């Protein structure tokens, strides 16, 4: 690190003071300069008054996982001074608000401390406490622009776009940004040794969070019913869905809406609404997080056993219990895979970034209809709520939704008898009818024992026939879910298996390990159930590491259970402190520890 277009810095502020928009402005400016950038918002479960951080990483090579070390920390919250000064890498920089004398806590050998009196400048330039506080954030953005070489023209352009319709606010922001910029130029040596230089590496990309992208996927897939109960970090998914539906799905003449969004009384009801709508023939989904997944268990079993399509977006966060609602993890792998009592299994898709969240949202609806079962999209807080640089989302207009096996009135005419759960094709999927079809199509859904005609049964053979069909159906799902992504290196003996948001850090680790002479192949699992290819990957590598973000190596457990691979063949690398994974964790675990030792 520490060069042109290769550095990372963190800003520590108090939440609820408007720093989020300042941080967004910084990140977007860098992006507009054509330089790959990522931002990680490390925020508290609180509305106002607690410490919050924003990490920005700039990397010309496109490594956008969380930065392994910080070249600079901007310490604007006295409550976290001690922690912030300790977070700077040796030889790095600390920028603080020098309106007051340098506090003892911020003194540290081996780093450079820079001061700009943001508070004082804003008190002199603006009226009112609220305005002064808000604009102090814009002022530090100005100083960072000077220190890092951010193109002020880009900053001005972004401010104009954001506040164009509010001239008073626009003027104040321009003034504050200049204030910070000029002060830095006057007081400090600008730019720093690590700084930005224009590139052309972002023109085909966007900055988007995974919840927005997933919501957009739901819109494009034709989802019409969304049911939910607010829970961090999944809330913004339904908010985004609402926004897009209002934009694209309201008839301009009649004002009629081609969607129904129901904020339920709890997650149980959200699941029930989703399943009821799915049964009735709508593409329906709910979005939730760990505690919601716990509450939805009974309904998930019903939908599994009764063959009802539904999509469940799980934006994972730290558990157990309430856990840490604003911290990221992948802690629900097992509770999704086997959700509910009785023998149950559910397909899961694991997007690695917002781009894939968009694609997999669409796939999830197709799979739900095709397989007539709940499909999980397992995102997490990092993917869901942080802005990621991904390729522009694209849509193929030739897409037609796969609604699976649904019999029409005409189809029913040709049948002597409609048997809802008869497996005609041998893939475990029986054709369904939708309420309203009439004729012979009526059937009775139940969570109690039922036979292939959907009639109640307590007969062993009829019961077994039905649950065995469900097993066949799950096996068939393997042929439909997305395949793993593999990045090979010639001669690699080590295999790194990972999933979801760990992807960027693991790919970076693969590069770093190569620089140390360690060659590794990477396999990113994109779905459950697992393909044979996964087993082959494990068996064909001398040592395999499974990298995931939970304490108990849940992915490894699932691989053991489902593929029958021995526990000893996979070494877990676990990172579960609640922050996005860094490549360093992986490199140290692989290069530092002898391979093949089970945890």
């Amino acid at each position: 690190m520490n060069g042109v277009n290769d550095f990372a810095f963190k800003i520590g502020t108090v939440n609820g003071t408007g720093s989020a928009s300042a941080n967004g402005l910084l990140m977007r400016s860098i992006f507009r300069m054509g330089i790959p950038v990522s931002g990680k918002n490390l925020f508290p479960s609180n509305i106002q008054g607690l410490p919050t951080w924003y990490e920005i990483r700039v990397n010309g090579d496109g490594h956008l996982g969380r930065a392994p070390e910080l070249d600079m920390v901007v310490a604007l919250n006295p409550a976290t001074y001690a922690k912030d000064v300790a977070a700077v890498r040796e030889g790095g920089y600390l920028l603080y608000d020098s309106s007051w004398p340098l506090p003892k806590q911020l003194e540290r050998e081996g780093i450079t401390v820079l001061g700009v009196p943001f508070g004082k400048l804003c008190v002199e330039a603006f009226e009112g406490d609220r305005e002064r506080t808000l604009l102090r954030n814009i002022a530090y953005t100005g100083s960072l622009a000077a220190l890092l070489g951010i193109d002020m023209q880009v900053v001005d352009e972004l401010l104009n776009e954001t506040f164009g319709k509010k001239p008073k606010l626009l003027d104040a922001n321009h003034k504050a940004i200049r204030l910070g910029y000029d002060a830095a130029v006057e007081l400090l040596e600008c730019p720093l040794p690590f700084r930005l230089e224009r590139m052309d590496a972002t023109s085909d990309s966007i900055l988007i969070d995974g919840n927005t992208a997933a919501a957009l996927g739901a819109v494009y897939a034709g989802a019409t019913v969304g049911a939910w109960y607010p829970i961090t970090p999944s809330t913004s998914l339904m908010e985004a869905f609402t926004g897009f539906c209002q934009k694209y799905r309201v008839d301009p003449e009649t004002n009629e809406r081609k969607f129904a969004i129901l904020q339920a009384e709890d997650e149980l009801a959200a699941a029930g609404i989703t399943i009821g709508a799915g049964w009735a023939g709508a593409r329906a989904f709910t979005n939730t997080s760990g505690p919601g997944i716990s509450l939805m268990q009974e309904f998930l079993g019903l939908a599994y056993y009764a063959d009802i399509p539904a999509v469940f977006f799980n934006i994972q966060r730290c558990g157990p219990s309430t856990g840490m609602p604003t911290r990221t993890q992948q802690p629900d792998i097992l509770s999704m895979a086997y959700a509910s009592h009785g023998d149950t299994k559910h397909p899961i898709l694991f997007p690695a970034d917002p781009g894939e969240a968009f694609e997999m949202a669409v796939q999830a609806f197709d799979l739900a209809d095709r397989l007539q079962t709940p499909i999980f999209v397992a995102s997490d807080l990092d993917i869901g709520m942080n802005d990621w640089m991904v390729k522009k989302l694209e849509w193929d207009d030739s897409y037609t939704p796969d609604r699976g096996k649904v019999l029409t009135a005409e189809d029913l005419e040709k049948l002597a008898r409609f048997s809802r759960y008869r497996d005609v094709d041998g893939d475990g999927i029986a054709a369904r009818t939708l309420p309203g079809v009439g004729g012979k199509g009526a059937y009775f859904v139940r969570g109690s024992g039922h036979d292939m005609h959907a009639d109640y049964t307590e007969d062993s053979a009829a019961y077994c026939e039905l649950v065995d069909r469900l097993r066949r159906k799950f096996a068939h799902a393997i042929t439909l879910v997305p395949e793993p992504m593999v990045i090979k290196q010639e001669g690699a003996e080590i295999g790194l298996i990972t999933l979801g948001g760990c992807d960027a850090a693991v790919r970076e680790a693969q590069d770093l390990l190569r620089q140390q002479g360690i060659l590794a192949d990477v396999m990113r699992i994109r779905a459950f159930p697992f393909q044979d290819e996964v087993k082959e990957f494990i068996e064909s590598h001398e040592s395999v590491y499974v990298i995931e973000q939970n304490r108990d190596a849940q992915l490894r457990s699932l691989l053991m259970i489902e593929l029958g691979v021995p526990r000893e063949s996979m070494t877990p690398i676990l990172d579960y402190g609640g922050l996005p994974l860094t490549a360093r964790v992986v490199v140290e675990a692989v290069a530092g520890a002898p391979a093949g030792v089970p945890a």
Partner: protein
Amino acid sequence: MTSIAKPIATHPRLKTNSLGLTIRDYEGGMSTLCAGCGHDSVTAAIVQAAWELALPPHRAAKMSGIGCSSKTTAYFMKQSHGFNSVHGRMPSVASGAAAANRGLNVIGISGDGDSLSIGLGQLTHAIRRNTNMLYVIENNGVYGLTKGQFSASADIGSKLKKGETNEQPPIDPVLLALSVGATFVGRSFSGDKQQLVPILKAAISHRGLALVDVISPCVTFNNHEGSTKSYQYTRDHDVAAVEADYIPVCDPIEITGLGAQSSNGHADSLRVVQLHDGGTVRLRSTSPDYDPTDRASAHQHISACQRRGEIATGLLFVDSGSRSLHDVLRTSSTPLVDLRHEDLCPGSAALDSLMKRFR
């Protein structure tokens, strides 16, 4: 035990409704409830009401939770889709189905255990949401399938078969519904088909959630002396507070005016309420100061009956001007399930243009 197919032997001269269907066409599978169960009478009343209304069977969706009451959706309208979901959660599943397809007549059947304990939250929120559906509570004061524990509707002092006395206050679904904004509330007795059928017809025709609480005695676990949900007790304490008659849109409507003489000779008030489907309900209150179109008045009257140990029955409250789930959501008049993908997907050009927002 598998379900029992009902023998089909139809009388050749059975009357047909406007769809050309006989009442047998509205029946379902053979009931597996105890002989004499009140629920079977409710089932018969639903069959009667649906046949009289000429409800297209394929347009109905029968929803239920878990319990004796919830089993009954299998015993009527075999030509309709049915959904026996999980305990206490029928209201959410019904809300989802109703939201997805506004063309369905959603008929939800629940019980006092299913709706007033495990499902109390879902019941109240389905009411608040004003989901377009009929919501019947077959209320017997006990858990039947688990063999006779008290439910939340059991009255203080009511005795179980084994002698145990209930000491906790009951939840009255009617008063509860009124207090959370229900737009149609009725109560009847499974043994009074004459009263129940018109209430059900009006309820099915109501736009929004129509709650009908039906005292439906459990012959096996709660029909003894000392029970306040027995046939005998209910007959002795049932006081018709409102006489209701539902007149479908196609029939001529006879308005007899307010203050007409009722059959019992007392001066009472007749109110004619127009429902959204064009049909009307004629409400004849048996008390001069009770207005079943006024929420506070209904609440007051029912509470007063309760204090006197009477069970007020009838179509107790109706707000025909209410806004249902679809009115509030402004959902398209074409059911969501019938919209084509091109009506829902904004397409590639819109996505390209949207991408500017994320630059």
